[in-house]
């Protein structure tokens, strides 16, 4: 289907349903938002709603498995480092030097050029009190921004959605992958997760065909309100009336029966899948991405941004960092993929003219032990660096490099000196322009990196 065809049918659909049945309280909450966005799109593609063209965008990049921070941001002149890692230490001549004492892993050429271009902030020694060394639990701590001893139900991104935009278009958060990260867990389910736009849609089965899809659409649409039939046939003057749209907006309550909720979600799913499919196919990437899962994810994110999806937060992940054995080759490959993918993404953003709107933040559930193990690998550790990339970042080194002196270690791991929630707070306040305390549970001194 051609995008404009979808748009037209969708507009027609919205006119007869939202504006028909809209005044009933069961109407999908976000339809009104989508509706105005679509109307704006149709009227003038340069005009977008608040979450559209002008909004700032955060891309969260998870490095799953626990990336070895010491071999990522290398303290190449530190004797403790070389002594602790006879097999794994990276030679001073090989690192991509940032200053006299630290440098980037040799395969992080992508990050080095971003750093040199003033587009990369490197936050050193990030962690949290009483570090947990279980992948499962520590990931959960990062995702929910909780204290080490506390279990939180909702994710920090989910809490951002709950606080900043209840009733938003579900595509305000998009996670690339099969599963919604726990960071997205929220009181009001928001956000979509998709591996690719082809699977985030109703797929007509082998016997289905077009009639099946049409039937699905009707089965999952609210009934037109008979009293509004006269308007349903109109060609659009009423539909464009701002007053009517305003009256609908925000009027849908979140309470109601489970069926109301399901009907709303079914509508959201239908509209957002059409939109994602249309948007992702109409934009072409303007940079060459590595042929890798992360490269594919970021190229899809770039197309969705280019297509004007009203998304504030994208979430992508890269796995494989759990390098207990033969770390050298694995980490080299992963970091190459990381740096090159992010570099390609920023090139794409620049070509689109969207570089000023995006910020990429990396995190990993923990760093690794200072001393290498007997298998030329490293075991689970604690604090590690984070990278923040964007046009408007405070480029350079933030925080300070953790001490590697044996007396300063915590059970063999480096101690954190920046709480990760300070980084979150800085991004929430400085980039997403929202108060961080309601989201993080209490006040953390924001570390402003953008």
């Amino acid at each position, binding site marked *: 289907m051609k995008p404009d065809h979808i748009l037209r049918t969708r507009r027609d659909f919205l006119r007869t349903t939202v504006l028909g049945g809209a005044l009933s309280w069961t109407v999908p909450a976000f339809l009104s938002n989508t509706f105005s966005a679509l109307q704006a799109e149709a009227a003038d593609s340069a005009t977008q709603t608040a979450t559209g063209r002008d909004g700032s965008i955060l891309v969260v990049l998870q490095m*799953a*498995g626990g990336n070895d921070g010491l071999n990522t941001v290398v303290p190449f002149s530190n004797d403790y480092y070389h002594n602790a890692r006879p097999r794994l230490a990276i030679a001073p001549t090989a690192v991509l030097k940032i200053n006299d004492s630290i440098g980037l892993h040799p395969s992080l050429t992508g990050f080095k050029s971003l750093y040199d271009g003033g587009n990369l902030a490197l936050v050193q020694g990030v962690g949290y009190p009483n570090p947990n060394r*279980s*992948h*499962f*639990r520590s990931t*959960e701590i990062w995702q929910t921004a909780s204290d080490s001893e506390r*279990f939180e*139900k909702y994710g920090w991104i989910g809490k951002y959605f709950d606080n900043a935009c209840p009733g938003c278009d*579900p595509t305000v958060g998009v996670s690339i992958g*099969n*599963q*919604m990260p*726990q960071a997205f*867990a929220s009181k009001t*389910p*928001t*956000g*979509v*997760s*998709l*591996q*690719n736009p082809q*699977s*985030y*849609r*109703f*797929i007509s*089965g*082998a*016997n*289905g065909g077009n*009639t*099946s899809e049409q*039937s*699905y659409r*009707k*089965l*999952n649409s609210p*009934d037109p309100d008979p009293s509004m039939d006269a308007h349903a046939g109109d060609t659009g003057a009423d539909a464009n009336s701002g007053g009517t749209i305003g009256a609908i907006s925000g009027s849908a309550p979140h309470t109601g*029966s*489970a*069926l109301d*909720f*399901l*009907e709303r*979600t*079914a509508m*959201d*799913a239908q509209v*957002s*899948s059409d939109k994602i499919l249309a948007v992702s196919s109409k934009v072409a990437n303007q940079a060459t991405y590595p042929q890798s899962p992360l490269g594919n994810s970021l190229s899809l994110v770039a197309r969705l941004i280019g297509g004007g999806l009203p998304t504030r937060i994208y979430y992508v992940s890269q*796995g*494989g*960092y*759990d390098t207990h*054995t033969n770390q050298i080759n694995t980490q080299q490959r992963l970091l190459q993929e990381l740096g090159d993918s992010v570099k390609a993404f920023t090139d794409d953003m620049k070509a689109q003219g969207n570089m000023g709107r995006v910020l990429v933040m990396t995190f990993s559930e923990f760093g690794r032990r200072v001393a290498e193990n*007997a*298998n030329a690998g490293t075991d689970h550790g604690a604090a590690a660096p984070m990278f923040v990339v964007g046009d408007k970042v405070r480029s350079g080194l933030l925080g300070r490099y953790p001490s590697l002196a044996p007396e300063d270690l915590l059970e063999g791991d480096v101690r954190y000196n920046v709480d990760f929630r300070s980084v979150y707070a800085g991004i929430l306040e400085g980039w997403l322009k929202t108060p961080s305390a309601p989201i993080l549970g209490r006040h953390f001194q924001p570390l402003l990196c953008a």
Partner: protein
Amino acid sequence: MLKPIDKQKWDFTTAAHLLNRAGFGGTPADIDRLAAMTPEQAVLYLINFELIPDSTPNPDWAKPDPGRADRLMAMRNADPDTRKTMQQEEQRTQRQRSIELKHWWLERMANGPRPLQEKMTLFWHGHFATSEQKVRDAYLMWKQNELFREHATGNWLQLLTAVAKDPAMLVWLDQAQSRKEHPNENFAREVMELFTLGEGHYTEKDVTEGARALTGWSYDNRDEQFVERPRFRDDGVKTFLGRTGDLTGEDVLEQIVAQPQAARFISAKLWNYFAGQPPSDELVTALADRFRRSGMNFKPLLAAIFYSEEFYSDSIVRNQVKSPVQWLVGSSRVLERDVPGPFISYGLTRSLGQDLFAPPNVKGWDGGLSWINTSNLLARYNYAAFLVEGDTSVLRGLALGPPKGGGGGMQFQNRLDNMHAQSVDVGKLLTVEERSDKDKLLAALERRLIQGTLRDSQKQTLRDYLDGQPMLDRDVVLNTIRLMMSTPEYQLA
């Protein structure tokens, strides 16, 4: 409060409701059988499940492994490379068993003779939410599952004591490592906060004192069993929830269960699980009162719930979102087909948000509306095409890696491609007459799948679909079933 349901209200709809909530739903024939009983008989039939023999065999590896201790020792003493190989072998075995275990349980829910026992086992699994991701031993996960089954409708203190001494729980909440020098508070805290009382009904001091009293309860990794370790035990005086003395773990659990809040907490949670909504304060009081008067045995409480007129009120019937497990098991039942094989069942439940034996955290699954978001609603619609038509193309998004990194996704894709998937047997679901008359077909499917009614516009849509087909053949019938399952209404029970 808790007046028995009016016999006049006992019909197909209410019987279907009871079977959905106290079990995993059933075919129209199953429901008719229940509807033909009195409501009292129906409730007793479900509740007195031990009268029905259950001969489900255990997974063949679900028994103590006498060679395990020696293997662990050999692994410890091996050189690094050998150890690595042994560890990988062990992980592979555990992963394989884990997937078998999930399937074994889903099968038992779908086809076992005791639906309420399995439904309660699932409740306890979500309540004492223990994850294989930390326990990493399928045998221990199975053993805990059996414990929940054994105590499914038993006594609260006995269940709680058994859980506190359960190996998987001892590992999961770190009680295994707790000793008097450093009491680990994890279990002591969660047992009150999440399992029995709820926040605000104990103090931080109760947590630390409770943790002291629980020291000595530990886990013997060699025998894979609970063990009391006198050397770990703090035998000093503690004060816990108002009681003072050299308290033991048993004292702690007894003292917890003696709190009036204990009866309220678990009664309210059970009501919410079965009714789909939190109970009013008045209702909690009535339920907790029944529970306490019965000596804190669950059977009388469950009977009171299932027999009450409140349980059948309009705001409760067909107003609960099916959990992914309920969706998969219930769909297999109404479609009269097998639960899909181990890998696919695992993939479906996991991607829909309920990976058995791997709840998201110690709080378990949130349930209710949180089961649904746009992504997994579309996934339910698409997976329906697999369940009904055997269409594996809709499973393509299901890249199935093991939970943490590593390969496996490709393997799964190959399995999928080589799989000979089957569609449901329409001859089992519909009479010849129903298969040849559009109105009868839709009415029969509505009764089977929705157990209520669709909106008129939806019925018209399906009728239009049928009218648009050249003939009413098997494929059209299958697609109609799939479409009816691709509605908001089908997600409710």
